[in-house]
């Protein structure tokens, strides 16, 4: 790819800004309340409203569903600089993502790195067109933190694998079209060396799902069951029994995604919310304990943001930031959990509302409950601390 000069990039910025202003509907420039406000794509989903449809289709025509992927896979072919500009301009205008897709954020990077060209041509264009809703089949009832202990079995039956077992915490499995799955293909090898990475069509015979209700009252999570499911061998990604390599690679992407919880949303600072809810005395918050807690949260939120920037800037100069995804995941989710705890303290009894006849009421208690999962999903805080101590600090095992 040719590198663009500074003037070309500035032109690109101005064109992008103009195009976004002309094509992004006003309602698509408002913050989302929850993930349900996003368009998720897939074979069976419909748009929530006309604006969402217009916005998705405009971006699709522009090839900006995944602007930084190669054009042969339906991407926009933008350079890193151009893609950064597009992201900055979308953030500036408050544009929503045209689609929320694990295919883009998680599976895509793994396919780029590990799939054959044939597999890439088969799966990536479907992702950039928003036609496949992907979900993730990693955890199992007996393989949570000890993910590599997974037991879902894939038996070699000549032209296909026969799958038996179950997965848990499969977000949106009841709506998804396909699942990317870790399965055990060798029961005799050490546990990390007998795992393979398989793509499974959710409409295959023998696949069933059951939703899981969380303490927040509802959730996208499901259990997914595989009962003698036949999967063609060409759906194996990478090398047989080397799926753990792909799993680890993909987990770093997931951690970054969870670590950045809320980072893309407009997040009001806690002290602003405190000003609306709490008493002030002599120009400062009257509750000294809460004031200190808010200041500590504000300090660390603000410095954590600087840290994300610093590490990204360092990565651009070639410093390997791989193991740091555990730091992002750990710190980002711990901050989010403490933020929700404080938000609940600041909003008093209003923050405890579960349901209300008043339409304007913010149902924050459910979000608070949901946040408790942040430091568990995608590898618990304790798992991340273990990775930091071993992979970054080189502490012995």
């Amino acid at each position, binding site marked *: 790819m040719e590198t663009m000069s500074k003037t070309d990039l500035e032109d690109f910025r101005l064109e992008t800004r103009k195009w976004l202003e002309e094509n992004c509907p006003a309602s698509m420039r408002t913050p989302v309340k929850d993930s349900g406000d996003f368009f998720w794509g897939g074979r069976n989903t419909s748009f929530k409203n006309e604006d969402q449809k217009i916005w998705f289709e405009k971006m699709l025509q522009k090839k900006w569903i995944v602007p930084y992927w190669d054009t042969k896979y339906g991407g926009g072919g933008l350079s890193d600089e151009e893609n950064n500009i597009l992201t900055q301009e979308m953030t500036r205008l408050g544009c929503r993502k045209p689609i929320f897709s694990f295919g883009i954020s998680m599976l895509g990077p793994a396919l780029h790195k590990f799939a054959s060209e044939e597999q890439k041509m088969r799966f990536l264009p479907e992702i950039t067109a928003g036609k496949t809703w992907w979900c993730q089949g990693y955890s199992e009832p007996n393989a949570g933190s000890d993910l590599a202990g997974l037991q879902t079995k894939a038996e070699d039956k000549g032209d296909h694998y026969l799958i038996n077992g179950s997965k848990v915490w499969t977000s949106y499995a009841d709506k998804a079209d396909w699942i990317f799955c870790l399965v055990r293909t060798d029961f005799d090898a050490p546990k990390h060396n007998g795992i393979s990475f398989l793509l499974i069509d959710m409409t295959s015979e023998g696949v069933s799902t059951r939703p899981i209700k969380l303490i927040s009252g509802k959730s996208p999570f499901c259990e997914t069951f595989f009962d003698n499911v036949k999967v063609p061998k060409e759906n194996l990604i990478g090398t047989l029994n080397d799926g753990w390599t792909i799993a680890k690679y993909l987990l770093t992407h997931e951690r970054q995604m969870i670590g950045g919880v809320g980072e893309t949303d407009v997040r009001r*600072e806690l*002290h602003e919310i*405190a*000003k609306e809810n709490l008493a*002030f005395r002599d*120009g*400062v*918050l009257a509750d000294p304990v809460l*004031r*200190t807690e*808010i*200041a*500590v949260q*504000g*300090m*660390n939120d*603000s*410095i*954590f943001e*600087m*840290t994300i*920037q*610093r*590490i990204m*800037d*360092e990565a*651009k*100069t070639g410093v390997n930031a791989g193991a*740091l995804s555990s*730091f992002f995941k*750990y*710190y980002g989710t711990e901050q989010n959990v403490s933020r929700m705890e404080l938000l609940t303290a600041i909003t008093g009894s209003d923050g405890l509302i579960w349901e209300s006849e008043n339409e304007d009421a913010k149902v924050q208690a459910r979000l608070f409950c949901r946040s408790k999962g942040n430091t568990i999903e995608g590898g618990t805080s*304790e798992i*991340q*601390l*273990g990775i*930091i*101590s*071993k992979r*970054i*600090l*080189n*502490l*012995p*095992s």
Partner: protein
Amino acid sequence: MALILNEEQKMLKDSANEFLAMNAPVEQFRTLRDNNYQAFDQDLWQEIVEMGWTALTFPEEFNGLDFGYVGLGQVMEEMGKRLTKAPLFSSIVLAGTALVHSANQGLKERWIPALMNGTKRLAFAQDEKSYFDPNNTATTATKTGNEYTLNGCKKMVIDGAGADGFIVVAKTDEGDLGLFLVDAESEGITMTTEVLLDAGTYAQIDFNAVKIDASQRLNDVGNGNALLNHINNTAAICLSAEMLGMITEAFGQTVAYLQERQQFGKRIGTYQALQHRAAKLFCEIELCKSVVIKALQGLDNKAENIDQLASLAKAKLGDTIKLVTNEAMQMHGGIGVTDDVNIGFYFKRARVAQRLFGDYNYHLDRYARLKAY
């Protein structure tokens, strides 16, 4: 602006690292302490001058390098790693910043070259109580004709003993703060010194009707608070850089100890209780690195939110240095509380550094006030 060092800044950091590793390892700190708490080594100070570190933040019109605070911050960080004793902070960061931002051209021309080439040293006299409280200065400067009369008592003057003069903060009868450059030999000055637990010597200076010519005043009437605020921000940020060096070194020594120390037949770094605590320290230190470079850049860019950046840096570093040095002591076990190993030096210096120019509580409160809550 990218939160990384540019090539020149990296080179400066590398050369500071090399130079100090060779000429001022932490053993030198021990030697100076054991030599009746000697303040610093004059030969080392001269070499530091020759390295150009004293010229980094002075403008070109005084033959300074105009290299900026990010550069000086790297030197401070490297000095922090080895607890290097030198009057760089007192004479260059504090007095130097005061002079650079002074409105008094005569004082600048007279003093900046002398500070840069190390022939003279100045110390900064601000604190009056046992805690940092820049908004309540009690020392007074009363004007009569072309002369001020200074009365008051200053504490915690860093490198005060042996300084050629002091920059003294006083309340004037013109209704604002004045910063005065007072010759150390002036009549009416009495100095006593105290050694604190970091083996540093701090002066208490009594100013009893000390006469100062009005031409010794650094700031124009009405600008005293702004100048003092800028000095205090700069001090907090440069101290944070020094503290970052102490933190990374104390942490590095601790991780190394976890890797080698054996108990119950295995290395103690295999225990999860210690692994997780070390990993948490790692995370906090990552935050420290970011806020220090951001704040140093803020000084160079004249960032509008420099007050906030200074308080964020000093609050975060003040909090983390306590945590890291306490954990370092605990994880070193019995040997950590002996004077034979160096880890205790970091613990002791941390207690002083986190207090100078405002501790965690002060800066967290200031940060909240700046955000209007």
